[in-house]
């Protein structure tokens, strides 16, 4: 196998998780690369949905915006944003959605609103965007974000979008329709979630990554799967597609 970067490993691992999926709600950046790689490999019938109103996108280049015309060109359908969120997402028609954030906690809750106190933020971040309703309504959430101690925190500064909330079936109590986060793909490892407690569990390490590296980058006492695996390496074809066709400028390498 050709040597790959941690970012490439992350994108490939996220793409593979989409095997068999037909509808995915995509964001710009890392999710965009993962979903487009999946469409070229493990999920050829994957329909890409973007919150600007686009269904069935076939982007020819990397979009700079979720409303980028490259997402519209050749797409199956375009509708208003309110209809996309209402008729597709809240209507229950989105299987998987990708999310990320500045902070995530052990239950997969996400912060994209502020660092510091909300009243007097140290950093004002964009806010929910579409993430809050996506986290509530998509059938499954896959999170993709780089593993860093300042991002994987014991206490979020702000709970923008719900993961498993306080854990232990709290989503069901609120009757949130989606099943919440199922997977967190990082540049070092893959986490899944314990079905009973809703807590993040280390599922596999990317090749060459030590367990201690992951433990150091997580701000709580990390649960580890009984049979900790190694993430399957990218194939030469995965890397060729990423480097030559999907991201020739190497923005996400």
């Amino acid at each position, binding site marked *: 196998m050709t040597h790959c970067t941690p970012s490439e490993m992350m994108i490939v691992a996220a793409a593979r998780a989409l095997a068999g999926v037909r509808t995915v709600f995509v964001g*710009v*950046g890392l999710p965009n690369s993962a979903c487009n790689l999946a469409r070229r490999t493990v999920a050829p019938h994957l329909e890409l949905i973007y*919150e*600007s*109103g*686009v269904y069935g996108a076939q982007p*020819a*280049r990397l*979009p*700079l*915006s*979720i*409303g*980028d*015309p*490259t997402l*519209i*060109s050749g797409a199956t359908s*375009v509708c*208003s*944003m*309110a209809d996309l*969120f*209402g008729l597709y*997402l*809240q209507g229950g028609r989105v299987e998987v959605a990708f999310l990320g954030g500045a902070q995530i906690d052990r239950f997969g809750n996400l912060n994209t*609103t502020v660092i510091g106190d*909300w009243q*007097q*933020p*140290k*950093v*004002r*971040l*964009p*806010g*929910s*965007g*579409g*993430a*809050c*309703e996506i986290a*509530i*309504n998509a059938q499954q959430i896959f999170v993709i974000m780089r593993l860093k101690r300042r991002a994987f925190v014991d206490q979020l500064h*702000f*709970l*923008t*979008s*719900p993961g498993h*909330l*306080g854990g232990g079936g*709290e*989503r069901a*109590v*609120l*009757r*949130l*329709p989606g099943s919440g986060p199922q997977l967190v793909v990082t540049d070092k490892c893959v986490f899944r979630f314990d079905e009973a407690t809703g807590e993040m569990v280390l599922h596999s390490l990317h090749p060459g990554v030590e367990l201690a590296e992951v433990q150091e980058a997580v701000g709580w006492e990390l649960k580890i799967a009984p049979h900790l695996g190694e993430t399957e390496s990218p194939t030469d074809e995965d890397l060729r597609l990423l480097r030559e066709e999907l991201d020739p400028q190497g*923005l996400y390498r």
Partner: protein
Amino acid sequence: MSDGEMNTSMGTLFSPPDVEGARQFFAAKSRVLTDKLMSVSEAVTQFVHDGDYFSSGGFGMIRISTAVLHEIVRQRKKNLGFAGHTSTHDFEILAAGRCFDRCDVAYIVGLEVCGLSPQARRYMESGAVQVTEWSNATLGWRLKAAAMGVPFLPARALLGTETFKYSAAKEILCPFTGQKLAALPALYPDVSVIHVHRADVYGNAQIDGISVADWDLARASKRLILTTEQVVDTSEIRRTPELTQIPYWLVDAVCHVPYGSYPGNMPYEYYLDKEHLNEWLEAEKDVATLDAFLQKYIYGTQDFAEYLALKGGEEHLAELRAREPLQRG
């Protein structure tokens, strides 16, 4: 956070869901077929007032009305309310002009893959702006409620989060299923601006490509300024009525502004100018360089045409036309 107890939010409702007041306002609004062509400067002077609640159509850096946003800054409008719905470059311009003092937030400060705007951050972190949190769907559905004339729409949104806590939504129980829902209050902006591909002089307008929230925004807003790439005869509009998102009686002003979304993208027309958007971000790193930048491009120019000329005029715009991936036919 059990199902039994009802949680309350603490955000300020900047624009109350006054459906009766809105009905009266819309009933009294003139439907006379009159020529509404005017300059951007006239439109902003006449229809945007200090303290108004303002909303910008399009999608942040796609089909925005840069000319009107610049003019709001140039005329030093103050204390506006702002609907931060998918706002990126539009937010950046108004934050640079310090034009608003309250904001309903769905997506602000960021420019998607281009990162965060330093000035938008400074302004939002300064304490000068009162914030209520929402999300892209919920703010969009607030406009839809207003357009529909109902005081709220229920949604499976916001529940269980601090986004809800700092919003002005309310939890309600569904009268049919008993489940908790978020009630999203109708949002009636005092004034909005939408940039379109073509309009006639009365304000019948057509949009190509993504419409985002503009169908609802046009119907929720008390006053509406259109800027348009092309002014066309009404017969041209009538040839493809299915493309007419905005009928004339919603509209107060029609301004002819070719390249009016620059440096944003205009689907089927021209691509965004990433270099100039980066120039904005670079200038914003420091307050002094931002002041000089604003002086050069906004305060020191008469109008949008002068700004386009400073940015390389027709020659540069032709390059952006060539870069647009959406082609007609």
